């Protein structure tokens, strides 16, 4: 997969909005490559520019600088007719589902096929196949108002896949859903990625969504990409401040409320979580430590954990602990500069 050219390349992408209060830079010099067949996450806090970014990928928003390459073809250089054809190879789903309220489920799934001028009979056949895939074949004649949120998103996914797109863009697709429904929708997306080979781009503000399905992730902060990498790598060693914030989440804030001594964050991958790291450390250093936060998460099928501990008061003791962790090759870092 590495040898192939990326399906999407963003080159020096920028987007400025001109408002009555002067120009606002939503995106600045974004460079990203999305590989064919991967699930790529884009995470950021609200207002970071992630929704604008995903709309630039299919040119719903026209960037003010830079270019988008879709299978090495420049979208900027395309005529608007060509751009519309390219969009038929890029499905998109939304937070609010955006189904046509006056059309039933089947007609909604047929809609992109109508736009692509597919004969009706063929369109209905394809739509029924997709409804079967998303498990809503029996609801074909129902209207969106009669469906639950999760069902609506399943219809939207079927609709987005109707024209056999190579890439599926998901804009906060699970943000309006409850945790259980979120899980099942994420499972469906993963299945589609695996079985149909569709590249999936996931936009979210929730780290748990990234951890559940993404191979790689880009963290976007204040119109810039803060860091890009494998989800597991970023989890164990976040390089940017925003990355640390997103990974620690609410726990960081809780841990910060206890003032006092130096705190460190230790992260474990599947290998080290088998060993009783902390007990070993306490026994070896003969100092007590205070555990402020601990959790394990499932990242791409591997159990990964993180823990925030408070170091002992004496500096000698502190150094002993830090040295122990260093020699035991445990990932750790100080949490003093989080300033949340």
């Amino acid at each position, binding site marked *: 997969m590495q040898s192939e050219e990326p399906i999407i390349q963003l080159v020096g992408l920028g987007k400025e909005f001109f408002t009555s209060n002067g120009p606002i830079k939503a995106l600045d010099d974004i460079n990203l490559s999305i590989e064919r067949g991967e699930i790529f996450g884009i995470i950021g806090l609200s207002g970071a520019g992630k929704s604008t970014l995903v709309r630039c990928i299919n040119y719903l928003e026209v960037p003010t600088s830079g270019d988008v390459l879709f299978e090495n073809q420049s979208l900027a250089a395309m005529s608007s007719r060509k751009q519309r*054809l390219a969009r038929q190879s890029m*499905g*998109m789903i939304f937070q609010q589902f955006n189904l046509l*309220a*006056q059309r039933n489920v089947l007609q909604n799934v047929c*809609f*992109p096929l109508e736009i*692509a001028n597919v004969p009706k009979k063929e369109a209905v056949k394809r739509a029924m196949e997709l409804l079967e895939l998303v498990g809503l074949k029996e609801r074909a004649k129902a*209207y969106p108002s009669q469906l639950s949120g999760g069902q609506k998103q399943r219809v939207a996914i079927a609709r987005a896949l109707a024209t056999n797109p190579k890439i599926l*863009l998901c804009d906060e697709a699970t943000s309006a859903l409850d945790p259980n429904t979120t899980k099942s929708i994420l499972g469906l997306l993963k299945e589609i990625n695996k079985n149909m080979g569709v590249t999936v781009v996931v936009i979210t503000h929730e780290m748990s969504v990234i951890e559940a399905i993404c191979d790689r992730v880009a963290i976007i902060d204040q119109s810039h990409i803060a860091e890009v990498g494998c989800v597991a790598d970023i989890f164990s060693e976040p390089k940017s401040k925003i990355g640390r914030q997103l990974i620690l989440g609410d726990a960081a804030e809780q841990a910060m409320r206890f003032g006092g001594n130096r705190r460190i964050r230790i992260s474990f991958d599947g290998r080290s979580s088998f060993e009783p790291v902390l007990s070993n450390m306490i026994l070896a250093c003969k100092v007590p430590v205070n555990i402020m936060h601990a959790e394990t998460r499932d990242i791409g099928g591997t159990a990964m954990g993180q823990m925030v501990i408070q170091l002992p008061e004496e500096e000698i003791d502190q150094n002993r602990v830090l040295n122990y962790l260093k020699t035991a090759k445990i990932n750790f870092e100080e949490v003093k500069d989080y300033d949340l």
Partner: protein
Amino acid sequence: MTFDAATIAMLKLGVWETLFMTFTSSFFAYLIGIPLGIILIVMDKDGIYPVPWLQRILGLIINLLRSVPFIILLIMVMPITKIIAGTTLGAKAVIPPLVIASAPYVARVVESSFKEVDAGVIEAAKSMGASAMQIILKVLLPEAKPSLLVGAALSVTTILAYSAMSGFVGGGGLGDIAIKYGYYRYQTVMMFITVAILVIIVQVIQEAGMKLSRMSDKRIK
């Protein structure tokens, strides 16, 4: 006054003329108003095919036409009426000014119905590669249908009210009877009767519009 056969025949003719004026004018007003409403929404600066300068000029013309009192417009457009209808008297002569007066109104009503269509749904259609024309025909019109029907009931009843003013130029219809008999000849009973008939017609049109809208709306479970 007495209720002889002649009076009843006159009222019957009045009803017929009123309905004829109202529905013919409504038909032409919508024929012009729907495309105008579409242009207003589509060519808006945030629309799916932005041509803001044209949209603004059109909006200005529509507002200008809407600010002219109908009774003045009725007289102002008489030369045009003469060309189109061949006469400046009777029910037929009221149709051209009614259409000119109500088409801009209809355009605004239609525009507001289109505005209710969820922007997200339009965005979804765009993400599928739909052209502006496909969005108008397959998204805007069908999604706005229930609201357009409510708007139609509003427009038709407004046009009916306008048509009642045509009595002023001998336009015929119930309004004409109300002015000639009820007002000029002090036949209060006649005035009440014509007004009562108008009330009933308005009620029927309004209710029919609302019911059609409800029946067509798939958002209602």
